[in-house]
């Protein structure tokens, strides 16, 4: 059967209940759970100590004793990748927190107050959205030096702009709904309206955005540490592992492949989790978007 570009004409035909446990949601939970488990495990156990240069032959390929091979100093790569998982999740969680708190505050303020506050905050947010995360990170690193917290602040502040935008749009939309007008007519105050009606309405969308933000935080952190602007050693970051492995990848290509795969798995997991939550919470969404 060929594909028809026209919309279905009779609406009664295409009613489809959103699946509560969509494949995206399950895959997202599995992938993020896997990364989180590895990260947690690395706190108590890794096959070798990170600075153990005698774990195997230098630049060795994957083997029974070094599952991902070794780097040019003879350190075990699998142990470093495990620790990198913890590092990635810390950056993701912390920048989600920074972005969430900042973004929701700005968004609620902009969406629920007077027009001039709205316009001022919106222009600031738009500027921040246009201001590339990488440049912001570079500014912050120039001032504070390369560190884990520099990366988190940069990614979090940059991400707060998107969260603020989403919050503001939804707050404004919810405030226009009839039931809000009704609630306010019935004497519900400004703060009551926000906490009782607006926040619960906005929460699912925000959760989705935060998950996606977590994904881009992992990507941004990897880029920063690849460039040498992330957490300095001994923090193991996947981006830095890739940078170090690049010069020796003719001999030991796995060092330049496996940390990248770890990044992809983590980001994919967070993105799928976001999609899954959206499919679960947004009743208007059809299964295939």
């Amino acid at each position, binding site marked *: 059967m060929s*594909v*028809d*570009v*026209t*919309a279905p*004409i009779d609406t009664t035909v295409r009613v489809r209940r959103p699946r509560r446990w969509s494949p995206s949601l399950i895959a997202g939970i599995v992938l993020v759970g896997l990364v989180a488990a590895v990260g947690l495990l690395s706190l108590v156990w890794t096959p070798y100590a990170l600075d153990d240069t005698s774990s195997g032959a230098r630049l060795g390929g994957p083997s029974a004793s070094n599952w991902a091979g070794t780097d040019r100093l003879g350190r075990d790569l699998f142990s470093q990748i495990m620790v990198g998982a913890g590092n990635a999740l810390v950056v993701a969680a912390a920048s989600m927190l920074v972005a969430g708190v900042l973004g929701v505050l700005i968004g609620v303020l902009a969406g629920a107050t007077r027009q001039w506050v709205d316009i001022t905050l919106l*222009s*600031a947010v*738009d*500027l921040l*959205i*246009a*201001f*590339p995360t*990488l*440049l912001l990170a*570079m*500014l*912050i*690193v*120039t*001032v504070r030096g*390369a560190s884990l917290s520099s990366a988190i602040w940069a990614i979090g502040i940059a991400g707060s702009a998107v969260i603020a935008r989403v919050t503001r749009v939804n707050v404004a939309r919810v405030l226009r709904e009839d039931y809000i007008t009704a609630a306010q007519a019935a004497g519900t105050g400004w703060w009551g309206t926000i906490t009782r009606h607006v926040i619960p309405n906005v929460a699912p969308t925000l959760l989705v955005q935060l998950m996606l933000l977590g*994904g881009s935080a992992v*990507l941004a952190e*990897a*880029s920063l540490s*690849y*460039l*040498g*602007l992330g957490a300095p050693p001994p923090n193991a970051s996947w*981006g830095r592992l*890739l940078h170090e492995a*690049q010069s020796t*990848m*003719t001999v030991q*290509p796995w060092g*330049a*492949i496996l940390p*990248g795969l770890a*990044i*992809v*798995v*983590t*980001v*994919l997991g967070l*993105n*799928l989790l976001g999609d899954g939550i959206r499919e679960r919470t947004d009743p208007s969404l059809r299964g*295939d*978007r």
Partner: protein
Amino acid sequence: MKGVLFRVGALLISLVLASVVVFVVLRLLPGDAAGASLGVGTTTDQLESLRSELGTDQPVPVQYAQWVGDLVRGDLGDSFTSRQPVADLVAAKLPITVPLSLAAFVLAVLISVPLGVIAAVQRRGPVGVVVSAVSQLGVAVPVFWVGVLLVLVFALTLGWLPSGGFPRQGWDDPAAAIRSLALPVVTVAVAMSAVMVRYVRSATLDVLDQDYLRTARSLGYSRWQALRRHGLRNAAVPVVSILGIELATSLLGAVVIENVFALPGLGTLLLTSVTGRDLPVVQTLVLALTAVVLLMNALVDMLQRVIDPRLRRTGVTA
């Protein structure tokens, strides 16, 4: 017309705000710029002379006014480390970064627009499913890793293209220059396409569900005719809105990717300046890149007004 003036005004305000932010953030540096750049082991005399030369002995608002005044007059200042004018340093890097990001942007559009439209029209067909899955995977891949993998395959294993660097003669040896930029361009374009395909696909899907496409079909237009007549223009509205951001992405992607391929462009300059705390260079480069991004966004807004007459009516986009 009023809308255009409004947008230009907003652009100017954004530029001023951006310059203030860049300036203020960099003044938060502990100690001062002169001390930071000279490092340990410098005499007080050296420090003092550098301070007066840089103007960092002046109050901060005066410094800002001087910096902006110089910028407006076209004086971008001198680098701390190499003592060369920033303008010369930047000019020397443009022949690498500009072609790289522009070519990557064009290539990304050429890849993602047709793929996105086909993926939407055949959303349940094999093409649609594959494109969606690949782009879902693609947005999770860091751009620099794409570069690393391409180097591994096409430079180190197959030996088709150089793994990095730029010919010393530059564009005087066009074949060599293009060969060195080939992998970087593909890298940035592939990474961008993953994101843009999703936008194009979802914008097209939205349009496919619209009643006016059904109207067109009921009047005898074929699927593709209906999509071409009504769909692409309508789908272009949301897609164009992200083009500005995507052009910025290509520029920033170029900045990162230059470091993967050891290309002596703006990105490499920016990175060495950040690690060397070369304030004038960082300050000017960050502001210049931001200005380009803001300018692109403004242009995109105006382009949207051309496409969508509804925006011309309201004046302010919410």
